[in-house]
């Protein structure tokens, strides 16, 4: 049996259990806040009423059931997806700068959305399948290049192939936009990332992908722990490298692809959340992935709720709030810990 000495003793198991429970409670609180706060603030009693005994004549019922509930559900789904995908991505590339967009997901999705806009697809629901297809194709290409490299899909080849593919695709996107102000006008709102204005059908469309992605992510966690020791050690421990990478990349693509398709690229969430979650759980991916997913949901909902309040009656896009609020928080956290940090 190999014992690993960590630089900082890992939090004991029962504390991590409490962390998980605490994060679940935080998601519940964030859901209630997201349902109640907005242009018209609703009390918990009104929310409860609208959900359990809908009264078609009451305005609260319409607000909750038509607007805030779909939006909140999508927020939870996308947050879970991006948080989980971020932890996976940083684990597989062993790089703290890796975000789920690195596999070419956001660049691929953006490219296909611009094509969809130019071919006259007019609705957010219409973009979903284009975005998803773009994310899927781009990440397949990235993984194909990385796997084709001598030595297989190592962290460095994965990351570099992703960077190159993303740059290539966003150049194509930009060249399409340069000739076409009308498309730019639509695209600039999509690309910021938001969970508002999507009906409940959007959540229903992406939910199965996110569910499968989360299951795959959890299945991948033990293998990722072994891979974190380096490929040679992992191989010596009996870990099969390529299958583990394939499961991991599939999970990332399903999660981040679905979230990006539904909300636009809110990729930043997947970059910071794993760093926050790692503080709570330590480096064990069996805990890190679920905690990161839950923390993602909390953060996305809070950012979205704040976005409704700060510029009342106008709304600030979730992606912008997330960067404006999440990034200072992230900076403070990075500053607090002295010395070097490793993944």
């Amino acid at each position, binding site marked *: 049996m190999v014992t690993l000495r960590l630089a900082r003793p890992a939090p004991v198991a029962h504390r991590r259990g409490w962390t998980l429970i605490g994060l679940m409670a935080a998601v519940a609180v964030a859901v209630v806040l997201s349902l109640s706060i907005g242009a018209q603030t609703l009390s918990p009693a009104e929310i409860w009423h609208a959900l359990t005994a809908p009264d078609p004549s009451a305005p609260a019922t319409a607000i909750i059931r038509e607007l805030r509930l779909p939006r909140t559900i999508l927020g939870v789904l996308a947050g879970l997806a991006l948080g989980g995908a971020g932890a996976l991505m940083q684990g597989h590339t062993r790089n*703290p700068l890796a975000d789920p967009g690195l596999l070419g997901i956001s660049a691929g999705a953006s490219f296909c959305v611009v094509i969809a806009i130019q071919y006259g697809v007019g609705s957010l629901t219409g973009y979903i399948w284009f975005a998803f297809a773009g994310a899927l194709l781009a990440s397949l290409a990235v993984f194909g290049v990385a796997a084709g*490299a001598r*030595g297989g899909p190592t962290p460095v080849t994965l990351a570099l192939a992703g960077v190159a*593919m993303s740059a290539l695709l966003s150049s194509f996107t930009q060249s399409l936009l340069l000739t076409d102000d009308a498309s730019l006008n639509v695209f600039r709102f999509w690309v910021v990332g938001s969970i508002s204005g999507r009906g409940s059908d959007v959540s229903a469309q992406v939910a199965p992908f996110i569910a499968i992605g989360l299951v795959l992510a959890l299945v991948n966690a033990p293998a990722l722990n072994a891979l974190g020791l380096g*490929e040679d050690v992992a191989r010596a421990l009996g870990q099969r490298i390529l299958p583990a990478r394939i499961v991991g990349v599939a999970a990332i693509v399903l999660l981040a692809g679905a979230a990006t398709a539904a909300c636009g690229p809110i990729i930043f969430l997947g970059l910071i959340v794993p760093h926050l979650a790692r503080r709570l759980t330590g480096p064990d991916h069996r805990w890190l992935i679920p905690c990161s997913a839950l923390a993602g949901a909390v953060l996305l909902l809070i950012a979205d709720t704040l976005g409704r309040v700060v510029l009342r009656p106008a709304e600030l896009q979730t992606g912008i709030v997330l*960067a404006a609020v999440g990034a200072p928080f992230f900076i403070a956290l990075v500053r607090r810990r*002295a010395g070097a940090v490793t993944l």
Partner: protein
Amino acid sequence: MTSSTQLRPRGRLVLSAGRFTATISPRGVAIGLIGLVAVIAVAVVSIGYGSFTIAPGDVVATLLGGGTTAQKLIVLDLRLPRILVALLVGAALAVSGALTQTFARNPLASPDVLGVNRGASLGAVAVIVLGGSGAAGVPLAALGGALVTAAAVYLLAWRRGVDGYRLVLIGVGVGEIVNAGVSWFLIRAEIVDAARATIWLNGSVAGAEWAQARPLALALVVLLPLAVATAFTLQALQFGDDVARSLGVRLRWAQLAVVLTAVALAAAAVAAAGPIEFVALVVPQIALRLCGGSRPPLIVSAVLGALLVAGADLVARVALPGRELPVGLVTAILGAPYLLWLLIRTNRRNT
């Protein structure tokens, strides 16, 4: 050390003078020289190409002081500054990227993780959207934005010294805030301004004049030797801060020198041509894969960066008749497939 030959790294020549010793890789020298010839060829073709075509022989003659009055006007006053800006921007960004990647020990690091490009973008987009669209306003705003953001990143990362890892993470955080600012400006702008800002954000050397070329050239004359002078420090830094310290590197000053040089190079480039981020990210990795070794080579990176941007500028002018693509787009379209191909082909082990 009794014999330096015992310690000689494979494929490298050792030069020593007194207490200073340097190793040189013949492969790197060869690639650098081939690159240099290619740079000159691209520059001559590029100067000759245009609505008034000039033969390569005449271009060289004019550059060396001959040529007719018309040729002098076209070559020296109109086309040379643009080519120079492209070459200098490419070299500056590539060296800046090589410095950052070695310092941060991370192939994903580019001057952008120090906030340079995003800070510059915020400055420029703010000026474009808020109105003051004067010719001098945008580059100055870009330069100011770049330097302020980079300073903020460095100060926020300071905690009894700067750790490369912390600097990069803080840079990512600050970069996201600044980026949100850019998005916000783009959303609240009139679509005309948003389109103009998008063009700037794609990076371009079109319309570059001596007014841009001169300060950039001056900056590089100072900064490139500084960058090369940090090479020993870089050699040590790549093994980690503790090893570097034990090798006798005065860590804080060394780090500050490397970061300052990288930031200044990238800021000079972005002020002249807008954010062509991809060069800084990809050229050092291409140079590393071509030359071998443990860290991106500085001089070869500079040559290849100049080649990539100048070549991209030529393609940008030739590709679509009657209209020019922004050079930043072409850079990625040329550079990305090449890096992908190198990744598949190279048998270097990257773990």
